[in-house]
């Protein structure tokens, strides 16, 4: 891991110094234990700040989209002959590159707008799982050493197996190496355990309708409508979200719990063939809503029905933007 970090910094520095990119979006150390936070590096000297470890959570493709679209927006006010191109470098793990593939398929920007520094990924730590392991205590200090996580809390030090605190989406990740990249750092990471990726969904499907409804309403009842899930999602890039449209107004924001259910339901549904299972939405949710339980179902159905896995290949377009004559239609009612 350290070796990767070192190479990453070197490559980033070079890219910036040679002006092949205008900015590099990566992770830097955060202010709290076990946090790495997105950073934007423009000065080659600052490439030293970059980190790559099990605390790097967010899908950086979100920021790639933001930076490029903001730049394009700002260029509209510039005379055509004076317009500048902005190239964004990004530290891309498997899921982030899937999102970039998706952005490219959805014509959000061109391949030339982004330089992907591919990194192999072995998963990130799920803060909520970690909290459970240490009994909800505050982490005072922490580090990852090999396959062990060392945590210091007020009641002492503890060593936890990394695998026990890795996020669920990482544990069963099918694409933990970049789908596309311009520069690849290090060797491909060993595969995770994708054979079990739908276990949870399968178990949930086997519950009764009422049990599933009870779970759905319980989870959505936690939502405080801060929209962190939407904001962090690389696939949620609409300029005006349906939630904020006022003419017509699709969904209310308060009074009734069904409004929140409908908001979440429709946001989730917008992820058909577009969710790369990066886990960012679940990771950022301050209320711990189990969004993945539902997103993974869409992923499963997308594969079962249309053989699609979002962003897994440039040649495999989002399933709802295409069709096949012989698509399954056993759900069609025939009286």
């Amino acid at each position: 891991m350290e070796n990767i970090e070192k190479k990453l910094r070197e490559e980033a520095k070079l890219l910036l110094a040679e002006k092949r990119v205008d900015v590099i979006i990566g992770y830097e150390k955060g202010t709290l234990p076990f946090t790495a936070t997105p950073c934007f590096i423009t000065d080659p000297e600052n490439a030293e700040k970059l980190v790559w470890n099990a605390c790097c959570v967010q899908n950086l493709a979100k920021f790639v989209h933001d930076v490029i679209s903001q730049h394009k927006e700002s260029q509209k006010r510039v005379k055509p002959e004076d317009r500048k191109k902005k190239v964004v470098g990004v530290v891309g793990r498997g899921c982030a590159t899937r999102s970039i593939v998706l952005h490219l398929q959805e014509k959000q920007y061109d391949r030339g707008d982004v330089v992907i520094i591919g990194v192999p990924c072995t998963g990130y730590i799920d803060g909520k799982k970690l909290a459970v392991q240490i009994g909800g205590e505050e982490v005072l200090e922490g580090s990852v050493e090999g396959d062990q996580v060392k945590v210091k809390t007020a009641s002492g030090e503890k060593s936890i197996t990394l695998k026990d605190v890795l996020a669920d989406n990482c544990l069963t990740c099918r694409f933990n190496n970049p789908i596309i990249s311009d520069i690849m750092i290090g060797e491909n990471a060993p595969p995770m355990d994708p054979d079990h990726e739908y276990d949870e969904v399968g178990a949930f499907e086997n519950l009764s309708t009422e049990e599933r409804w009870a779970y759905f309403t319980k989870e959505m009842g936690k939502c405080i409508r801060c929209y962190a899930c939407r904001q962090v999602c690389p696939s949620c890039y609409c300029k005006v979200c349906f939630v904020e449209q006022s003419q017509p107004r699709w969904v209310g924001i308060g009074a009734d719990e069904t409004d929140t259910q409908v908001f979440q339901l429709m946001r989730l549904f917008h992820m058909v063939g577009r969710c790369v299972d990066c886990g960012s939405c679940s990771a950022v949710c301050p209320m711990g809503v189990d969004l993945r339980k539902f997103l993974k179902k869409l992923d499963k159905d997308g594969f079962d029905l249309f053989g699609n896995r979002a962003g897994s290949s440039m040649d495999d377009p989002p399933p709802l933007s295409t069709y096949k004559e012989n698509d399954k239609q056993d759900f069609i009612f025939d009286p």
Partner: protein
Amino acid sequence: MSETKTTEGWEPKIVAIVCNWCTYAGADLAGISRIQYPPNVRIVRVPCTGRINPFYVVKALQEGADGVLVSGCHPGECHYITGNLHARRKFAMLKNFLSYIGLEEDRTIFTWVSASEGERFAQVIKGVTEKVRALGPANKLVKKIA
């Protein structure tokens, strides 16, 4: 069927979102041919099933529809060539997903009815009404206010 919820005097309210070229014409034909079918549907006409935002279905449920029917042209007969084929994918996903979160499967029904199928239209409405009647009044995702 031990615990079917039926409220005294309750009649299912069904929103049917249908395409202009096939199913709406089919409904017309049913009318012209004086074919009887239950009066429980409220028809919303759209140009093509491909135009239907899945939100329409959810919104109808939230506003209190006991069931939602979506019907368009048979595959291969779309006025816009492939609108219904795109729609088919959307609705396959939507139906599964609504059922997954715990909505009764028969609240949302998708089908095809062509312009010449007046009889089929009546059969569809009959079938849907029966299915929804068996489920009883919708109580999930239904907005309440005040």
